[in-house]
Structure formats: structure tokens, C-alpha cells
């Protein structure tokens, strides 16, 4: 199974962060991907992505309205969206992942 990783973060870090993560998780599972989402919420980083996670991933999805530690994703195909887009349009984002039309991230 191909793996996708991602990070979500919103200013308050109470609700949006987790809703975006859930929305992406569901959309990814629908298309048969393995998915791991890191959440940067008010209580800190949860479900932190390991180097191995990032290494294995075929795509990275960043859904954040605040700054996220980005250097670790150098050289990976990466999609960057706002938290709102992730909540509303997770399916569209996943279809983009599937189509393979993603830019490689240069830190």
C-alpha cells in the first residue's frame, strides 16, 4: 500500500487542526492509501512524523494556517493547502495525489 504523510496546523489548535487531519485521512483511505497525519495543535505536536514515515511517503500534504517545520520534506512531492481547503476539498487534494501531478518541494 502506498503511503501518504501530512501535517495540519491552525492558529487556535483546538478544532480545525484535527478536523483537517480527519478529513484528509478519510479521503486517503477511500482511495486505498496508507496515511499518517501529524497534528500541530494547542497541546503541541501529536502523532509526529518520523524520518522513516517521510522517507516511505509518496506524497506530503501540508494543511496549515501557521508555520510548519518544513525542512524535513526537502525533495518530496508536496501539496500545500490551507486548513479550510483540507476540510472542504480533501477529495480533490487526494485526486491530485493520485494523478501524480505534484511539485517537488525545495527547502
Amino acid at each position: 500500500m502506498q503511503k501518504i504523510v501530512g501535517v495540519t496546523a491552525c492558529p487556535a489548535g483546538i478544532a480545525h487542526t484535527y478536523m483537517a487531519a480527519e478529513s484528509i485521512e478519510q479521503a486517503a483511505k477511500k482511495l486505498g492509501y496508507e496515511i499518517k497525519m501529524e497534528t500541530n495543535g494547542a497541546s503541541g505536536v501529536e502523532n509526529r512524523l518520523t524520518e522513516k514515515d517521510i522517507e516511505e511517503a509518496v506524497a506530503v500534504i501540508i494543511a496549515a494556517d501557521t508555520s510548519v517545520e518544513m525542512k524535513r520534506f526537502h525533495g518530496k512531492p508536496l501539496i500545500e493547502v490551507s486548513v479550510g481547503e483540507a476540510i472542504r476539498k480533501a477529495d480533490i487534494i487526494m485526486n491530485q495525489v493520485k494523478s501524480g501531478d505534484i511539485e517537488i518541494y525545495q527547502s
Partner: protein
Amino acid sequence: MSKGSQIYKHIMTGVSYFLPFVIAGGMLMSLAFLIDAGNVGTKTYGSTIPLAAWLLETGKIAFSLMLPILAGFVAFSIADRPGILPGIVAGMVAQSGGSGFIGAILGGFVAGYIIYLLKKLTSNIPRTFEATKTLIIFPVIGLLLTAGVMIAVNAVVEPLNQFLTGALKDLSGTSSILLGAVIGGMLAFDMGGPVNKTAYLFSVASLTGADGSATSSIVMAAAACSGMTISMSCALATTLFPKKFNDNLKGAGKAAYVMGASYIAEGAIPFVIAKPKQILPSIITGAAVAGALVSAFGVKMSAPIGGIFTIPLTSNIPLYILSFIIGTLVSTLMIGFLTKKEEPVEQT
């Protein structure tokens, strides 16, 4: 990513770190005044009883760190770790120089970009000088440059800030009601998104006087009250009009009761996603009505957050609750009126 969304991200990173300071500080100070309610009107109001005095002092310290933390983490977002020091100092400078929120945010950007620039300029320095970079160039030179620019920032922003705080204070009658309505509508507009955060930040800023001291404000009361109506009205709609919502949304409605009571607008999101054309106008109208009513009644609030726990901290509890109930009912009834009966086949 566009420049605009970069700048938004930097500000929001600062906001995400400064929110706990505002909330904790504001709540402790409000509690102090609540405990000391028997001494209203005396000179020592808020600190007559020792427990109140202690709460007030602790709250003030947390609150006074708000602008430095905001600026510090805007700079952190731009320039990473080395940005924190000049950012925090820039926030302090903005605070003591009377340029408030605007000054602090600008200060964060000044500090962040100065360090960013220094990083670029020194990127070719040999590895052996690495220590010089992190121990001298970034902190010392960075701070000197930042502080220098802050003189200019304060000179420009301080009068502007004085003017704005003054204008907000003098706002009364129709313009105050209008402002309350706009704040309420903005909070509901994107439920926790950029527009919502802008309105909330503006309300929190209204809690600081021109000299940086804490005060209570009508704008904050309007924001606190209208913010509760957003999730609450969606929840109430699922109870009053059960036939118009599928089981998913009915479940979301139960959660929305709790979120509404805790001042979390996000509870409305599942509803807006399912029926944007019906729900969005309803919650915006309801929140605007609540905001307008609070302003019309002149209710003030000293805590920087809404929700049922801060209801006792408003200057007029019955009128505040009345505004909340009317606002919620307006949007609940609008939702009931606008949405059609849920077709059972729509369940997938």
C-alpha cells in the same frame, strides 16, 4: 505560496502562541474582579481581598507578556529560532512605546526579516565561524538593527494607535451597534478562519487601553456573545427541526451544543459544508443580531473569551444572556425556514 498567505501564516503563528497568554491572563484578572465584587467603586476594586489581589497580579503578568510573545513568534515564524529574541524585545518596545498590537505585529516582522536577511548575508561564512554567527551576529547585531527600526515604528504607530483606541472608546449609539453587528457577522463568516480571527483579534485588542493596561470593552462583549450563537444555533436547529437533518448532522448537533457553550464556532462547520447556502446566511445574521444587541445594551466584558464560563464576567448578565438567546433564536429559525426536509435517499 503567495506573499499574502505567507504574511498571514506568520501572523497566525504569532497568534497561536499568544492566545494562551491572553486567555489565561484575562480570565484570572476577570476572576479577581468577580471575587472582589463587594468592593465595586472603591479604589482597591479587584485587589481588596488578598485572593483577588493575587489573581489580579498573576493575570496582569501573563497579560503583559502578550505583545512580546506575539511579536516573538511572528519573528520565529519568519526566521526560526534566532528570530525569537529580537522579536520578543521588539514586542516589549512596541508595548512600552504605546504602539500596541499593530506595533507588536510590525515589530515581529521587522525582527524576523532582519534575522532572515542576516542569515542570507552570512550563509557563505565558513563553518568555523558558525559560533560567531549564532552568538554574536544574529542576537547582538540583529537586536541592534531591530531596536533601531522600532524607533521609527513607534514614532509612526503610536499616534495611530492612540487615535484608534480613542475612536473605539468614543464609539457609541448607531456606530457602536453597527460595529457589534459587523464583529458578530465576521466571526460567523468563516467559523475560525482568517476573517473570524481578524474580528477576534480586534476584540481582544480592545481590552488593552492606550497605555497598555487591561480594561473591559463592549466590542469584546459583542464578540463573546455572538461567537456562542454560531454553533449553538446549528445545534438547536437539529433539535427543533429534526426532520431537516440526516443522522450525521444530528450527531454533529450534539457536539455543537458543547462547542457553542464553549465559544467554539467550529461546531457549525459540518452544517455549513452540508448546506452552505442555507446555514451560512443564517448564522451570520444571528451572530450579527447578538453582537448588535450587546452593543445596543452597552454590555461590557473583561475576559478575552466567550462561552458560558465567562457569562458572570460581563457587566450586565441578564441583558447579555438575552442578546445570546435572541441571536441564537434568529439564526435557528432562519435555518429552519431556509432548509428543506431531508430526503431519506440522500444518505450514502
